[in-house]
């Protein structure tokens, strides 16, 4: 299958002599396991690899079918591994049963034919084959073959079916294997590779993954990055995803998202589910989101973000700047909202004005026209849009009935509110299920 994605020849794979000694995992399964004298002991069922800090995990053991029983043989006893057979270093076979230990993965059972994320190619694929090679004194998993050709190759019997097709091999270091094996398999390399992706790419990958792998990927990501990716996803996909992960993890992710986006997600979930997620959050965050969820999406309160940096008019410029620095990771922190002693809205002051002023200056001296546009929580969406087009500002402050600022509406919140109504014509109902 032709693919436009980048394939990354690994450092390990191009190292001289390694290519010729690659062993195809798909081909080796079912081959004879022999002792030093060439006596058949049984047939190879699976390879066990141990994930640790290393980029290329070593084979820690074999599962071999001996006289109808599955036995575990320690990896240290492998003397030689070729594409046709496995030779053990001693004749004694201790027929212990395989017990999965933390970080262990079965190559045929957990990885082969399962979905993986090709981090460089930014796509989700099934593994057609896996390649082992001797490296640093151990037999290690070095490469993944995701080509459709190798998949077809495996259909054929005989030596042809076991021949590695090394032209389309991806370095093991640049894939994320998300196989659900009940244990924890996460190499630091995978984590690092994933953290380099843009949120929009991660969102695309999440949508291409099947349920279990999807949940596994979410568990693997840094919460901030995962939250950014979630914000890029379609509502319908996002809801499906949230139903597939634990309430605890869902609460963590929603806490990292912009509050208005989280509220929108929670609003669409059924009450029972959203309550059980809220119960896992910090009380302050849950309280804030509960209030946002209450608001109708067709009114200012429903589309605003409640993230505001509020300062008193008696505070100094340096106080305001310190607050901005503290919240610098929020991309909406472009200034501070100034209130009077009673908490009523006075002005919104941009960062540039704060920088131009003296650090010791009181904020009240900066309060002057142009004043920000303010609307009440109940203002209908159409009027909010009108205010935006009249004032050409980048944001509007939302105030409660006492004139206290409770949130802000940014231009992109307006776009969010307007777009779904027009773009989801196809995805609205779920037929008899809705």
């Amino acid at each position, binding site marked *: 299958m032709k693919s436009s994605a980048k394939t990354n020849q690994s450092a390990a794979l191009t190292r001289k002599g390694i290519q010729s000694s690659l062993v195809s995992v798909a081909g080796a399964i079912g081959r004879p396991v022999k002792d030093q004298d060439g006596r058949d002991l049984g047939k190879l069922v699976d390879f066990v690899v141990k994930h640790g800090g290393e980029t290329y995990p070593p084979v820690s053991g074999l599962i071999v079918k001996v006289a109808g029983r599955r036995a575990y043989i320690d990896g240290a006893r492998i003397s030689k591994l070729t594409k046709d057979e496995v030779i053990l270093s001693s004749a004694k076979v201790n027929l212990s049963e395989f017990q999965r230990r933390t970080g262990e993965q079965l190559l045929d059972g957990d990885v*082969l034919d399962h979905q993986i994320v090709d981090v460089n190619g930014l*796509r989700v694929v099934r593994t057609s084959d896996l390649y082992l090679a001797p490296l640093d004194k151990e037999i290690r998993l070095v490469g993944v073959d995701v080509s459709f050709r190798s*998949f077809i190759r495996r259909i054929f019997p005989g030596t042809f079916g076991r021949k590695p097709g090394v032209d389309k091999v991806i370095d093991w270091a640049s894939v994320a294997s998300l196989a659900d094996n009940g244990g924890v398999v996460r190499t630091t390399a995978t984590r690092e590779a994933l953290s380099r992706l843009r949120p929009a790419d991660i969102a695309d990958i999440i949508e291409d993954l099947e349920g*279990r792998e999807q949940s596994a990927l979410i568990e693997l990501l840094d919460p901030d990055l995962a939250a950014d990716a979630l914000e890029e996803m*379609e509502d319908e996909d996002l809801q*499906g995803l949230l*139903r597939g992960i634990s309430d605890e993890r869902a609460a963590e992710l929603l806490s990292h998202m912009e509050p208005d986006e989280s509220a929108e997600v929670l609003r669409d979930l059924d009450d029972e589910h959203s309550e059980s997620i809220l119960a896992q959050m910090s009380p302050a965050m849950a309280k804030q989101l509960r209030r946002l969820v209450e608001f109708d999406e067709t009114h200012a309160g429903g589309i605003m973000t409640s993230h505001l940096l509020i300062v008193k008019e008696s505070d100094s410029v340096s106080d305001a700047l310190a607050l901005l620095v503290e919240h610098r990771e929020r991309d909406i922190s472009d200034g501070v909202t100034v209130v009077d002693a009673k908490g009523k809205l006075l002005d919104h002051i941009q960062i540039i004005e704060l920088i131009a002023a003296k650090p010791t200056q009181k904020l009240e001296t900066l309060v002057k026209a142009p004043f920000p546009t303010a609307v009440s929580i109940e203002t209908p969406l159409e009027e909010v849009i009108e205010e935006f087009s009249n004032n050409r500002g980048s944001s509007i402050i939302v105030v409660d009935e006492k004139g206290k600022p409770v949130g802000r509406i940014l231009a992109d919140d307006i776009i969010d509110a307007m777009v779904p109504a027009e773009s989801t014509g*196809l995805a609205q109902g*779920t037929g008899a*299920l809705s």
Partner: protein
Amino acid sequence: MKEVLTSRKLRLGAFLAVMGPGIIAGLSDDDPAGITTYSQLGAQFGYQLLWVLGISTIALILFQDLGARIGVVTRQGLIGLVRQKYGARSGLLSATALVLANIGTMTAEFAGIAAAGSLFGISKYLTVPAAAILVSFLVLRGSFARVEKVFFILASVFIAYVIAGFMAKPDWSAAAEGLFVPSMPFTQEALFIATATLGTTLAPWGLAFIQSYAVDKRLTKSDLKLLRVDVWTGSLLTGIIGFFVVVTCAATLNANGQTVIDDASQAAAALKPLAGELAKEVFAIGLIGAALLAASILPLSTAYAVTDLTGRPAALDDKVEEAPLFHSTFAAITLVAAILVLIPGVPLIKILVLTQIVNAVLLLPLLFYMFGIARDSRLMGEYRASDRMLAIYGVIIALIFACVSTLIWLTIFG
């Protein structure tokens, strides 16, 4: 924001906006092949083989229900799951079986179009290419959602059989006996139509479809109850319509000595007690609606299921070079089916029934894999099928196997 909008992918779930999956899967059985097979069953054997339909309906309910459960619990499509659990050969085998069966079913849909056209005196060389172009255009342009209701309403004309069944004043006690007391002449004809009935009712594409749908809509265990209600309703509706088709044909065609159906007008004659002189037109409209509906969903759902092999879900708006497997499956099903029907002198009604025998044969590997998945506690967890359910699945699979192998035996040596 712009990026999110352009990356939106048109997938199976979003494609089917109006109907529930159970109803759609049920429709695969009230398509031209189903109606014709049931008509033949009633015309040829009266009420005697109604029990075959009864068993087929039970099998449909059980396996559709299993497919829904597998989809919801594993959150994977059938073909991908088979590759994952059984390896490359089985993955390719199941995908091939699905594609072949669906080429057969698609051929039956086009044969239905051709038969309906012939009732109005229009040549199949006009109607079949027109239908093939129409459905490909609607589906690939993404405008299917706007017309699916129209097709659905046309197809629902077949509910007329329920009324026609009562108006034909059938022998209800004979019908009850045929439904509950199994008996069968041990002839090739009887076995042929019984196998076709199994194959058309428990169609392979319905099984793959229900699972894909559950995965694509990201349905979870909490949705399972609703999904099962939908599946049971759809399957039962199929059985009920099928029952009335058989009863109507038994009371009209069979009672009047018309035991062989060679062309569509003979099948349409069963609707005379209800529609009188309009029977042909009513029958033709139903055929067209059901055929177009199934022909729109079938190649698409097959293409989605097959891309499971690569593990990279395709989308309707992917370019040809981005998703070659998706587009080649879609094209193969539509083209091969249309060409088969257009072979000069090919007997349309025979094709309609024969493709359902092929369905029954190709069902076997798929049901076998589903059985294996159902008993895998690592995949299914608490939803693993109980030993009693597994025994019932086993009996159904054995029954289909017995029908198919006896039929092959009789055909070769009989």
